[in-house]
């Protein structure tokens, strides 16, 4: 699905990220963990062609993200609140995304009903602009927004942060369900080791811009990661 070769990012001579080779196959739930400054968001930004790579390239379905825009139709991402349009209501935001991804207003109206339990009655019909919602509710709207139009690749940065415990549990189910139903590839970064090991089938550990570990998730993974981070 997504391929990075010889990828690196330098800021004024200092290397902040160096990934010689990384391949995420289609349908994988890929988890990215690491402390602050490890390069998680940098990696995602490179995947989405939001920053320029110093060396190497990223391809999504064999399409070089830097030279073509053809990867955009089947890719969706929610990195932070700046991925919302603050002056729209949640519904208007969903229609906006629907319009871009070829889903009609009527289809959206039916489709979002599915997510009512996840929204917990705090998103739809609120008569509030997204900028006036709480951080947690903004996140809920943003995450569901990425799923509109069944994109093949969904990138979520810290999706569990700011969510209440019930919503965290629902989110894990949501990700698993989507991946099963539509074969969606998920790239998820998180500080929360428990959640990320539960929901992902592969974990990559970044430190100071390098991929230190690349492991398939087993029942022991959580312990392994915890012991790594407690040193």
């Amino acid at each position, binding site marked *: 699905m997504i391929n990075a070769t010889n990828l690196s990012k330098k800021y004024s001579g200092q290397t902040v990220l160096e990934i010689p080779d990384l391949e995420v196959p289609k349908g994988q739930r890929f988890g990215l963990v690491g402390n602050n400054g490890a390069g998680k968001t940098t990696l995602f930004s490179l995947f989405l062609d*939001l920053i320029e790579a110093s060396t190497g390239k990223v391809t999504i379905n064999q399409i070089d993200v830097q030279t073509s825009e053809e990867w955009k139709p089947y*890719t969706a991402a929610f990195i932070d609140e700046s*991925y919302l349009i603050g002056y729209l209501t949640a519904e208007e935001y969903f229609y906006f995304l629907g319009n871009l991804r070829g889903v009609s207003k009527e289809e959206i109206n039916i489709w979002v009903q599915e997510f009512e339990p996840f929204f917990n009655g705090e998103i739809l019909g609120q008569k509030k602009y997204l900028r006036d919602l709480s951080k947690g509710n903004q996140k809920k709207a943003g995450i569901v927004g990425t799923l509109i*139009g069944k994109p093949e690749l969904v990138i979520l940065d810290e999706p569990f942060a700011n969510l209440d415990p019930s919503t965290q549990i629902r989110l894990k189910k949501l990700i698993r369900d989507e991946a099963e139903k539509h074969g969606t590839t998920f790239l998820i970064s998180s500080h929360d080791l428990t959640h990320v090991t539960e929901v992902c089938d592969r974990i990559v550990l970044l430190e100071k811009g390098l991929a230190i570990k690349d492991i398939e998730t087993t029942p022991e993974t959580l312990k392994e990661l915890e012991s790594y981070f407690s040193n």
Partner: protein
Amino acid sequence: MKSFSLLDFLSLSKKKFFRAPQWQFKLAIRIFLGFVVLYFLVAFLFLGIGGYYLLKKQNPETDPIFLINSFLGLYFAVDLLIRYFFQARPVTEVKALLLLPITKRGIVRGVLLRSLGSIFNAVPLVVLLPFCIVHSIENGMTYSVWIWFLSIICLSLSANYLTFLINKSNKIAAVFLGVFTIGYFLDYFFSFSISHYFEMGLEFIYTNPYWAAVPVVILSTSILLADKFLRRQLFLDKGLSKKKERIIGSNLDFFDRWERMGFFLKNDLRLIIRNIRARQVVLMGVLFLFYGLFFFTQDQYSEMPSMLVFAGLFITGGFMITFGQYVPAWDSEYYSFLMCQNLSYRKYLKSKLYLMMFSVIVSSILSLPYLFFGPKVMLIIGASGVFNFGFGSVITLYSGAFNTNPIKLNIKAKAFENTQNFSFIQLLFVLPKLILPLLVFYLPYAFFGFYAGLLGLAVVGLLGLIFQKQLLNLIVKTYQKKKYQTIGSFNKLVS
């Protein structure tokens, strides 16, 4: 508890300035703006000194103060209006101070004191002080002049503090607006002038100085009101909270009939009506519609067709000039989001181009009343409209590629502090944007006469339309080249 002094406030402001990104650049602009302000101050100074002699020359019999009084009513009305739109209040910065051991009284005092530093308070001072000095020199020192002077200052400062109330409460703003409108209509239809009573009041103070107590009472009342008001606002769920906004513009389905482009237009209209900053800028654009009234009403300009064309370009392109120059910065809050959506750069830019072209159509329709000034004026507006529609829009969009300063959408811009979106490159683009159309008009005009000039404008506009695809390709390429830089600087928007 320690009281929070003005000095502490100043020190915080200083840090805020010097630690902001690109502060050197901002400093340069501040210095430039400083010169602009200085220029105005000197101009006002001369207005104050020269004003005395000018008024004396026109009406040797009357005391100039009486003449000044006659338009002070209008002055204060306009003053309040401008303050309402442009005077920013330092209220939002106090949140961090709430938990520190500073008395609330201290915080409120700091805010009230700091608001005195506004440029709006300096205007009456710099105009009237030299005026009063000249008056005293010419007529001998009389204390009544100075009492009058202090009364005016008191009233001006009252306006300063009343703006706190008007700004934060829509109800109070509505009351003021109501009074202005009623005052205007009374004046217009019944010749009952509030301004005249205001004038009489000021005369009364001038001749009976004891009554100067009234402005002093007004000032102290407004300070007390502002103080009380602010003190009540110093809670997270009151003045420091984000205002809950009513949803407006939810029903714009009308635009859906134009499919994709209608959809983008709809979203941009929402951007405009739902964000303070955008509304402010668009209001400026609307004011340009009236620009023609300056030029078409005065005979001296009818012999200067270039000036008339200049007016025509502003009338039809006012919105495009004010709003369009900040494309794509209007989307800066969520630019990375747009950049990874299923939306090619080309389609995105095309939608912005259509928005500008749409605005030219709307402005042209709204300028139909200029028909009143005759068919010649209408032709000027028509030719300028075609030019702006086809070519001005393209130039504006192209220049946007170089504007990488982000905009905070829902925050008021401060007057004289609009450094956030001021860049020298934009300034450079003002030249082609204004000079080029004039040149396009002037060259054929100089050789073949007035109508050839207008034809030149229209032809260039049509050429822009015909080659729009090619021009857009060029624009897309330019934007693509600057993509990372644009995203990078838009992301610096500190929320």
